[in-house]
């Protein structure tokens, strides 16, 4: 009986993880992607679903401090992990310096890609407080924006880095 339950593709499994410091858990089918778990089960809709095959970067979140694509990971693979989503950036009504810099530099227009950009920039600035332009481009090459033309995003990253250093 137990073996049969294990091979049932619709069987629900328990999963728990920390998201923005808060514990979340759910009962999900194995095929649930991490981004669907975050959006549907956790109600954290700030993380966006774009291409769903790892190309556009809109779904980027931090898992144990590393930027990953939440659309091409299973939620079960984040069992026990600590995640940060865009909802985890601002504190007490105050924008995170990266968010503020994107606003100040017009680093967004429609905003669909922005959560992914913000998380990729978070990872970059955590290890490179004063990144070169090449390092910024390398970190953001996997995030697609169809509005800005990227130059204002580059400006925003430079400004955020400067503000976070001082």
């Amino acid at each position, binding site marked *: 009986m137990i073996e049969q339950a294990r091979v049932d593709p*619709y069987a629900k499994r328990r999963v728990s993880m920390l998201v923005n410091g808060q514990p979340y858990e759910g009962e999900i089918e194995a095929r649930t992607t991490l981004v669907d778990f975050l959006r549907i089960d956790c109600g954290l809709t700030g993380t966006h679903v774009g291409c769903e095959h790892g190309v556009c970067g809109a779904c980027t979140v931090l898992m144990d401090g590393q930027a990953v694509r939440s659309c091409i990971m299973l939620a079960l693979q984040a069992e026990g992990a600590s995640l940060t989503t865009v909802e985890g950036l601002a504190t007490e009504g105050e924008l995170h310096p990266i968010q503020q810099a994107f606003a100040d530099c017009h680093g967004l227009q429609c905003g669909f890609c922005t959560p992914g950009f913000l998380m990729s920039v978070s990872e970059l600035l955590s290890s490179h407080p004063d990144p070169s332009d090449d390092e910024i481009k390398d970190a953001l090459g996997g995030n697609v924006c169809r509005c800005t033309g990227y130059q204002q995003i580059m400006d925003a990253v430079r400004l955020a880095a400067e503000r976070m250093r001082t």
Partner: protein
Amino acid sequence: MKPAPFAYFDPRTVADAVALLEEHGMDAKVLAGGQSLVPLLNMRLARPAVLVDINRIDGLDYIRDDGDAIAFGAMTRQRAVERSRLVREKLPLLHEAMTFIAHPQIRNRGTIGGSLAHADPAAELPAIAQVLEAEFVIAGPGGTRTAASKDFFVTYLTSCLEPNEILTEVRFPLLPPSTGWSFIELSRRHGDFALAGVAATLTLSGGSIADARVGLFGVGATALRATEAEVLLRGQRPDAAIFEDAGTSAAAAIDEPLSDIHASAEYRRDLARVLTRRALAESASRAGAAA
């Protein structure tokens, strides 16, 4: 939910994973970093009945200095390989190639073993394995076996792994002294798969070419070695004329280059010629030749 339903197992040992593969055979797929497989699941291009996730198996994530080679546990993340000081110092060709694999967010999850087992002919790692003549350690029901890179890559997206086997380790031998190397890839955008690419090495001795290796990727059913070009180079002086001839030979060695929306077969063949020439010139200059 995008993927079709599948039964999910996350074994803790290689033996348990192999037993699951043995039980489910062709119905099962191994999930490593998932950066190629999960997109295929999302698009339902792959619909395995059973997924065997090997991420929770301890002891498959390491970079080990074996003296004349560096061994990598199959589940070592590509980002760890890219950032390894040992790799940068002793296998600079591999280090260089890592930076061409997709983007940092993908390399944070993608594994060295997963990319090799996926055997995409336009991917970087299979080409490096061919040029460095990597050795693959494979676990199956009867124990472990090893395979040479020339036998590992069979055809498009197909390795020599049987449905009940798992790649556990890959060993990249170091290059001999007085050897220069080069890695050149052309793609539409940085991080995309290659339209065509070349990984080359050149070993010099007394002003002539003692050994040459030319690996091509993005141009055939597998990453391949241009062996005729290599033979042609051996014993010659490293100059522009011989590199041109080697490029022509390498391009002629490609059976049937892929033709798709990104590039025609003719364009890919010509790229192989030009990139081989450039890669050999760069290898020679790194090897310290007055080419």
